[in-house]
């Protein structure tokens, strides 16, 4: 039943994203209009893919570092991606793919730095060092980004703003194809780590006794979750809050077993972002608000409601 409800929710959010928009289209024209085929459809698909990816990355990372506050961007990736994008803008790199690629590379560099830091205490990625390293790398790249932004020309800042606050206005069939081809690989890697992740949550020692290859599993989960986040950032900038709250919603609905939690996080993340983006496009039409604002406005009350219910239970 719960799975049915989750699938129904993501379908409903997807359909709403296609039917609703600032342009008024009569139902008879919906299937023929290029506004639907070339704008709303790729944007809705991208919202589901990006939201789902952030949800799964968040769920995996929270278990990996055994910290309910972990979020895909806490580990320095957003700072790296933002720096990459802002550098590309400041260096006037041309072409439609220069910015996403630079954001992706920036996230990879941050990932590499944090990963290297995480190995300091041995090969088993100490969660505390990962978290601290992520926050430190994030702060450092953030400082460089702000320095570049405050020295760059005013008109160029607008694009940087999008990358730092998130938005899906970049959506096109090309971005959807790219993400749809890329995302299944890290998603598959994480799903195959579902059982070891269940055990890792109990602690490294317990997991080892139960037969988990702790170091290898952690590295695989960290890299797959980070690559997933980096891809999401490269097409939509830093959309906050989805990766933080979605795993908690998933646990509340379907429990803590990762074989259920990871797919559920994908569906919930996709639903939340598709709904949030629809609201971002429609709520103040003809204007549009950054989608990260809506994910927070939508997610926080929901989160608070569920927190109260869970703590009462």
């Amino acid at each position, binding site marked *: 039943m719960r799975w049915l409800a989750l699938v129904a929710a993501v379908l409903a959010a997807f359909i709403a994203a296609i039917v609703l928009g*600032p342009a008024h289209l009569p139902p008879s024209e919906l299937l023929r209009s290029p506004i639907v085929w070339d704008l709303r459809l790729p944007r809705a698909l991208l919202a589901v893919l990006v939201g789902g990816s952030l949800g799964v990355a968040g769920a995996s990372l929270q278990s990996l570092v055994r910290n309910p506050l972990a979020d895909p961007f806490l580990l320095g990736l957003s700072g790296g991606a933002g720096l990459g994008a802002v550098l590309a803008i400041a260096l006037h790199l041309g072409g439609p793919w220069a910015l996403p690629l630079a954001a992706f590379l920036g996230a990879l560099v941050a990932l590499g730095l944090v990963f290297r830091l995480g190995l300091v205490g041995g090969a088993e990625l100490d969660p505390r060092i990962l978290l601290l390293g992520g926050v430190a790398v994030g702060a450092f790249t953030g400082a460089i980004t702000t320095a570049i932004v405050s020295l760059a020309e005013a008109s160029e800042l607008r*694009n940087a703003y999008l990358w730092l606050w998130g938005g899906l206005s970049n959506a096109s069939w090309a971005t959807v194809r790219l993400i749809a081809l890329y995302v299944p690989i890290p998603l598959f890697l994480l799903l195959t780590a579902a059982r070891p992740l269940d055990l890792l949550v109990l602690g490294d020692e317990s997991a080892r006794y139960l037969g988990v290859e702790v170091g290898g599993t952690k590295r695989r989960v960290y890299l797959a979750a980070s690559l997933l986040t980096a891809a999401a950032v490269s097409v939509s900038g830093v959309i906050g809050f989805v990766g933080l709250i979605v795993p908690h919603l998933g646990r509340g609905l379907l429990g803590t077993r990762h074989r259920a939690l990871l797919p559920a996080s994908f569906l919930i993340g996709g639903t939340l972002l598709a709904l949030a983006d629809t609201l971002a496009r429609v709520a103040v039409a003809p204007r549009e608000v950054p989608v990260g604002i809506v994910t927070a406005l939508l997610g926080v009350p929901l989160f608070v409601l569920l927190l109260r219910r869970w703590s009462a239970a």
Partner: protein
Amino acid sequence: MRRSLSRTHVAGLALAFVAGGCRPSTNRAPEAPPPARRVVSLAPSITELLFALGAGAQLVGRTTYCAYPPAALAVPGVGDGLNPNVEAIAARTPDLVVLYRSPHTETAARQLGSLGIATLVVHHDRLEDIATTARQLGQATGHADAGSAIARQIDSALAAPPRPGPHARVAHVVWDNPPIVIGGGSYLDQLTHLAGAGNVFHDIATPSATVSIETIAARDPDWIAVLRETADPSPPDYAQRPEWRVVRAVREGRFLFLPAELFGQPSARAPEAVAYLRRVLDRFPLPPPAPQ
């Protein structure tokens, strides 16, 4: 050279211009203070206006963006004007600093005031703001007649009867990702209207706003107006992107390239800008040419 002389003016001017603002038109100075001799301008539109008033020789500091008229480039830069560097400005020993109103500049204005430097904070989004500022700056710099003359020109341009239709419908797209367009609160909206065309985003009250490509497609402008630094006639990069080709004007290559030097800031040359836009629109009369 004039440095020692200018310092004597500083104290007397200190409070005369603080918190000026352009709307509503006020001239609070109880007695006319002596004209400012060393002026720092913290916005390109202010720099241009000072030169138009004949006060260019009194300008001792400008922003890095002040490029018009070309003579402005000879004036030393004091930063980007958006986050004023009070020390760099004070180092030019001005007796008047003119700032564009924003939270950052109002803080800077207070700091300059406490250093005993007179400030004038102006608001330049609409053409009537230029008329008001022209009068204020004209008086402050000893070019009151020139200020009134510019204000009259702008006022009469604004009062010109509307052109008979049909009106071309224009969208000013200033950024592609996220798409940012010019709304009814901007002088570009006024220039478009005065040239006998309409801004399809006139209903948005702010000077600019983020919208979705879908909204631009639905408003279906006849033209996409783009500011250009150079005379390059090639369409902007985003014109090739499939999501932008949903917009008819983009698909049909209907771009109006407006020189940034004339349209990039509200100025005393508004009548010239209107005439330019009229000429461009008249060259491609409605109904629009067949799709390519």
